[in-house]
C-alpha cells in the first residue's frame, strides 16, 4: 500500500473512531456545561447501551438496527432514573463529592457487568449489508465505518436542530448561559436538566452499541475510555456541540495515527496531546465558561 492510501485509511479510521467518541461524549459535555457536574460514570451508560444491544440481538433475536434503538432507550431510561434518584442530590455538591460519587457508580457498574456478563469481550453479529468494503475513488473504505459516520452525522444534525431551532433547545441554551436568569424567566430548569441528562445518556448508549466492534465491549469499558470522554469535553469545552466535535475528531485521528505510525509509544501520544491542549486552551477549544 502506498503511503498516501495508508494515510487516507488512517485518517478515515480516525474520523470514524472520533465520531464515535463524539457521540458518546456529547452527553457528558451537556451535563458538564449545563449542570457544572463532573460525571465520571458517563461511560457506564455507554456500556449499558452496548450490553442492551447484545442481549436484544443474542437472546431476543432482534436485528441490528432495532437493537440500536433498544440501546438508546435502555440507557436513556437508566439515565432518567438515576438522575431522578441520585444525581439530582449532587448538583450543588462540591466537585470532589461529584468525582467520588461517580467513581463509586463506575466501580459498581463494572462489578455488576462482570457478575452478569462475565469478564470477556462481547461479540456482535453485524448484518451482511454492513460488512465488507466499499470502493470509493479508488479507496477501500469499511462499510461499517461509513455507516457509523453517517449515523453520527444524522444524530448531530438532529441535535443541532434541537438546540438551535426548538423551544426546548432555547431553554437549554438559556440554562447553560445563565441559570439564575433562566429560572427568573419561568423556565423549569430542573425539567431541562432531567431531559438533557436522559438524552445524553441515551446518546451514550447508542454510541456504546454502535461501537462494540470498534471500541470493544467488556466490563472495564467505563474506566478504559473514561479519559477519552473527559478529554472530548475538557479539550472541546463544555456546553457546546461544535467544540466537543472538533476535539473528538482530532482525538480519534491522533490516536489511530499514533497507534499506526509509532506503536512503540502506544497510548502515550494521546495523553501528551491532551496535557498540551489543556495548557494552551485551559477552557477548551470553544470554552464559554469563565
Amino acid at each position, binding site marked *: 500500500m502506498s503511503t498516501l492510501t495508508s494515510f487516507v485509511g488512517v485518517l478515515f479510521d480516525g474520523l470514524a473512531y472520533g465520531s464515535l467518541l463524539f457521540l458518546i461524549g456529547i452527553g457528558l459535555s451537556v451535563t*458538564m456545561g449545563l449542570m457544572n457536574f*463532573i460525571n465520571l460514570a458517563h461511560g457506564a451508560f455507554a456500556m449499558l447501551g452496548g450490553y442492551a444491544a447484545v442481549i436484544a440481538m443474542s437472546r431476543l433475536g432482534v436485528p441490528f438496527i432495532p437493537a440500536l434503538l433498544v440501546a438508546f432507550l435502555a440507557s436513556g431510561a437508566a439515565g432518567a432514573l438515576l438522575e431522578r434518584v*441520585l444525581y439530582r*442530590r*449532587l448538583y450543588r*455538591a462540591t*466537585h*470532589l*463529592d461529584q*468525582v*467520588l*460519587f461517580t*467513581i*463509586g*457508580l*463506575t*466501580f*459498581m*457498574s*463494572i*462489578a*455488576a457487568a*462482570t*457478575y452478569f456478563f462475565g469478564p470477556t469481550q462481547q461479540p456482535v453479529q453485524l448484518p451482511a449489508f454492513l460488512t465488507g468494503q466499499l470502493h470509493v475513488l479508488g479507496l477501500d473504505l469499511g462499510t461499517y465505518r461509513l455507516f457509523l459516520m453517517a449515523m453520527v452525522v444524522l444524530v448531530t444534525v438532529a441535535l443541532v436542530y434541537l438546540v438551535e431551532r426548538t423551544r426546548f433547545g432555547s431553554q437549554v441554551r438559556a440554562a447553560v448561559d445563565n441559570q439564575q436568569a433562566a429560572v427568573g424567566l419561568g423556565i423549569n430548569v430542573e425539567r431541562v436538566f432531567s431531559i438533557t441528562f436522559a438524552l445524553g445518556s441515551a446518546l451514550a448508549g447508542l454510541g456504546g452499541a454502535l461501537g462494540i466492534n470498534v471500541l470493544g465491549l467488556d466490563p472495564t469499558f467505563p*474506566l478504559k475510555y473514561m*479519559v477519552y470522554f*473527559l*478529554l472530548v*469535553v*475538557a479539550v472541546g469545552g*463544555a456546553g457546546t456541540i461544535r467544540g466537543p466535535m472538533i476535539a473528538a475528531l482530532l482525538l480519534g485521528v491522533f490516536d489511530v495515527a499514533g497507534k499506526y505510525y509509532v506503536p*512503540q*509509544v*502506544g*497510548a*502515550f501520544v494521546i*495523553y*501528551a496531546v*491532551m*496535557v498540551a491542549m*489543556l*495548557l494552551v486552551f*485551559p477552557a477548551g477549544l470553544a470554552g464559554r465558561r469563565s
Partner: protein
Amino acid sequence: MTRLPTLAWSKAEIAFWLVPVAAYFLFPHYLTLGSQVMIAGLFALSLDLILGYARIISLGHAAFFGLGAYTAGLLAKHGFGEPLSGLVLAAIVAAAAGWLTSFLIVRGHDLTRLMVTLGIGLMLFETANQWSSLTGGIDGLSGVEMKKIFGVYGFGLDGRTAYVYTLVVLFLIFNAARVLVRSPFGLSLKGIREGERRMPAIGASVWRKLVAVYTVGAGIAGVAGALLAQTTQFVGIDVFGFQRSADLMIMLVLGGTGYLYGALIGAAVFMILQDYLANLNPVYWQFWLGFLLVFLVLFARGGIVGALATLHRRWTRK
C-alpha cells in the same frame, strides 16, 4: 489576638500511636499487612495535604508514589541498596516531579486539574509499561536487594525490620506534616480551601502556596512508594495504576479529609477490609468499594474522623 494551634500531643493522639506499637507485639503474624497499612497511610497522608488542606482534586497521585517506588527499586537493583539514602533520593525525585507538574495543576479549575493529574499518571504508566528494559514492564522490577539499615538490621522474612522501619518513617513524616498544617503556612492553606478568591486580599500568594504544598505532597508520596519497594523488594507496574489513585481517594474520604489522622485510620480500615473481602471475591470487592463511595458522599461526608469529631462535640456540650 489569635494564636497558632498548639503543638502539644493530646491523650487521644498518644493512645493512637500506641496502637501500632502494641500491634507489633500482639500480632506477630500480621506484620507484613501492618507495614502495608502504614505505607498506605503515609500515601493517604500525602494526598490529605493536597486534597484535604488545599482542595486540589487529583486522580493521578499514584504518579509520585510510582516514581518513588521505581527510584528506590532501581537504586537497590543496581547495587545502591542502602535504605535511608534510597528514601531520600526517592523523595527528591518525586518532589521534583511534583514541583514541575504543579505549575500545570495550580492554574486550572477542578476539571482541568483532574484531567492533568489523570493524564500525567497515565503517561507515567505507559512509560513504565513500554520501557521494559529499565522497569521490567508488565512483569515488574525484580532483583531489588536491600542492604541492612545502619548496617545492622536486615529485612528478614518475618517482616519485623520492615514494620519498625515503616512505623518510624511514618511517625517522623506525620509529625512534620502535623507541624506544617498547624503553622501559618497550614492556616493559609485552610484559607485557600475556604475561599480561594479572598486570600489575595489579605496579601497571600495563592499559587505559590499551592505549588509548595503540591511539591511536599508529591515528595511524601514518593517516600511511601520507596517504602513499598524496599520492604517488599519488588516494584509492580500497578504502582502507577489508576486503581491505586482511586483507592487512595477512597481511603482518605473514608477516614475523613483534612485531619491527617483521617488518612491513617481510613487506610487501616480500607486495607484490613480489602485483605478480608478481596480474598473472598475480587468482583464483590469492587462492588462494595463503589457502594462505599456512594454511601460516603450521600450520607457520611466527614468520614470516620468527621463522625468521631461530631460525636465528641455533642458529648462535651452536654
